[in-house]
């Protein structure tokens, strides 16, 4: 009877399925002005970056040998750089990297 455009649709009762692993409807990698860059040689796996990232963008790798950065969601707050216990992290200007483009149509 009614014609609801797809982009305006709301699920029944505004109840949505929970995300799995990440929330792809809210990619936040495009928030960054600076990104953290890791020197794996310097890293002693103190885990400060892992525990203190509000966006869970640092994770220990599967084999537990290094920490891995999530460029799709990192907002560039640089808490990790500030808290790194071994100076393994440095900040770098985003435009110096051709990668990590999260070009969205809308900001969300």
């Amino acid at each position, binding site marked *: 009877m*009614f014609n609801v455009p797809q982009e305006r649709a709301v699920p029944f009762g*505004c109840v949505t399925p929970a995300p799995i692993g990440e929330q792809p409807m809210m990619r936040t990698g495009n928030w960054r002005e600076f990104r953290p860059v890791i020197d794996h040689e310097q890293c002693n796996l103190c885990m400060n970056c892992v525990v203190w990232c509000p966006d869970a963008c640092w994770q220990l790798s599967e084999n537990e040998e290094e920490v891995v950065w999530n460029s799709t969601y990192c907002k560039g707050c640089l808490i990790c750089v500030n808290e790194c216990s071994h100076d393994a992290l440095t900040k770098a200007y985003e435009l110096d990297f051709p990668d990590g483009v999260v070009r969205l149509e809308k900001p969300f």
Partner: protein
Amino acid sequence: MAKEMTLSGCAASAQAVKMAKVDVICSYPIRPYTAAMMELAKMVAEGELDAEFIHGEGEHAQLSVVYGASAAGARTFTGSSGVGVTYAMEVYSPISGARLPVQMMIADRALDPPGDFGSEHTDAMSCRDQGWIMGWAESPQEAFDNHLINYRIGEDPRVMLPQFVCQDGYFVSHIPGKVLIPDQAQVDEFLPPYNPGKHVLDPKQPVSHGPQIRPDQGAIMDLQRAEAFLEMPKVIEEAVGDFNRIFGRHYSPFVEEFLTDDAEIVFFIQGGHAATARYAVKHLRERGVKAGLVKLRFVRPFPTTQVAESLAKFKGVGVVETSTSYGGSMRGGNLLVEVRAALYDVPKRPLTTSFMAGLGGDAVTLKDFYWMAEILTNAVKAGRVGKTVYWAGLEQAVA
């Protein structure tokens, strides 16, 4: 075996809620609905009803507790009166928007100021646009029945909406009447266990309840509820049909007519004062006045078609308002607004006016109805109504 008990409206409500096997109840005291919770508290204390009985810290909390409990898969019950009903206002729309079929009993009470414990429908009527089902009972029996009927309608997967099950404070809530209590097996046949479906809060199938939307999606949330109300008449007819069959009753789903066969003037009314109106109609007929009565059973969804079909048959309709709408288009209550709107597309409309009666808990007596009938009769004679609202007991009977 069904048994007959003499119960107040409050006690009858409690019996119905017990037989609906509710899981979570949230109470807060305010007169005159309190006794319903007193009864339920006794049942829980005696082990007759296995439910969580939570002492809410206020009406706002009552509605919040049942909101959470219903989202977590429980059948729920709460209730209130007067300013308690309006204190909980914030939570009504979140409940209907989340499509949680909680049930709330309202035993009406006038709103402050000052403190007035008499019955008036303004408390509930102020909340009529919050996406809840709403209707009144005339007697303890009808109150008992309405609780079961409303759970069935509200929990129907085509509906999934909360319900205000209303009764007049004191008149219905406090004065005992005969109530037929059915067998539990009959209730179980009529009312299946609550199935919250896929949107229940459950760690085994996680969902997010109520994330924010953009302004352009707000209309869609509204449309969802509006569509449920469009579907609802069908569900109500089915539920009332099943109820009549299983319990041997004769309810009309939306509007009940009394002595209307050749009636020229009718009272249009909802709630407890319909009981007195019936006697008034009988006595008016004894005096040769062709009077009748049309009782509204649901004000939300408003049965537009049924009201129009029913009222179009008469010459004069007097809407008995038991609530206020200060400054409204009819200068009285809201019911005449609805009635006139329902009649707008009828080719031959009856004359309509309204009577403010029973405000603040004022009794509405036979004399009051005779006075209303005189105004209606005069109006029919004159072919016009003098004004859209008359205040019962406070004005001379001139058309």
